[in-house]
């Protein structure tokens, strides 16, 4: 549990707090001209990058999981319940 709390502290320091600070500080100056075209499309491409990376990681993990733990894998070991009827009880 201590390791998990430590991990959260690291994540909080590295990612969450700077993001929130950045969000609250930007765009406060009056008469600041922005190129909405660039901002909106950049946001779109960043979000698409996140979506595709997450999609690749999740589907990749699933593919690996299914391939690694298939019954026909030479490395597959039966669980301690298999053949005992333990699963039926």
């Amino acid at each position: 549990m201590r390791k998990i709390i430590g991990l959260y502290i690291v994540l909080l320091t590295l990612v969450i707090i700077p993001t929130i600070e950045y969000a609250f500080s930007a765009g406060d100056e009056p008469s600041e001209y922005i190129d909405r075209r660039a901002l909106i499309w950049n946001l779109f491409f960043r979000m698409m990058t996140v979506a595709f990376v997450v999609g690749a990681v999740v589907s990749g993990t699933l593919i690996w999981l299914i391939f690694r733990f298939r019954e026909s894998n030479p490395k597959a070991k039966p669980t301690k319940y298999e053949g005992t009827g333990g699963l039926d009880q």
Partner: protein
Amino acid sequence: MSGHSNWPEWVYIGVVVALLVWVGAEAWNVERIIEHIPEEAKVIKVTGQQWFWTFEHEDGTKEIGELHVKKGIPYKFEITSTDVIHSFNIHDYVVLMDAVPGRINTVWFLPFDEGEYPIQCREYCGLIHYNMRGTLYVEDDA
């Protein structure tokens, strides 16, 4: 189950939460910046009705179906409708805002390239919705 370690699950939850926070903060921030209208922006009243757009400049001049603006000057559109819901769209400048009867919606933009750009209604508003178009003319201020 004794001896079972669930730290990968907590790592997974942490990463997902961090990603969601980041995505939410980014989107919220961009929206916030975009909605910050410059004080010196010139107001153009935009009225949608079946099936054309009317534009009224600050000096009272009106245009129908076409809109002339100067390059490098920020404009604030005050958008409304007289009949049904329309949606005012200048695709090339990523301007998109609903025109709702009895309500004024605002959106601002800065034209920075001379040229002609299509204006189109983006909310199905009846038989001739497809042809509820206009043209934006961005001209040099000099």
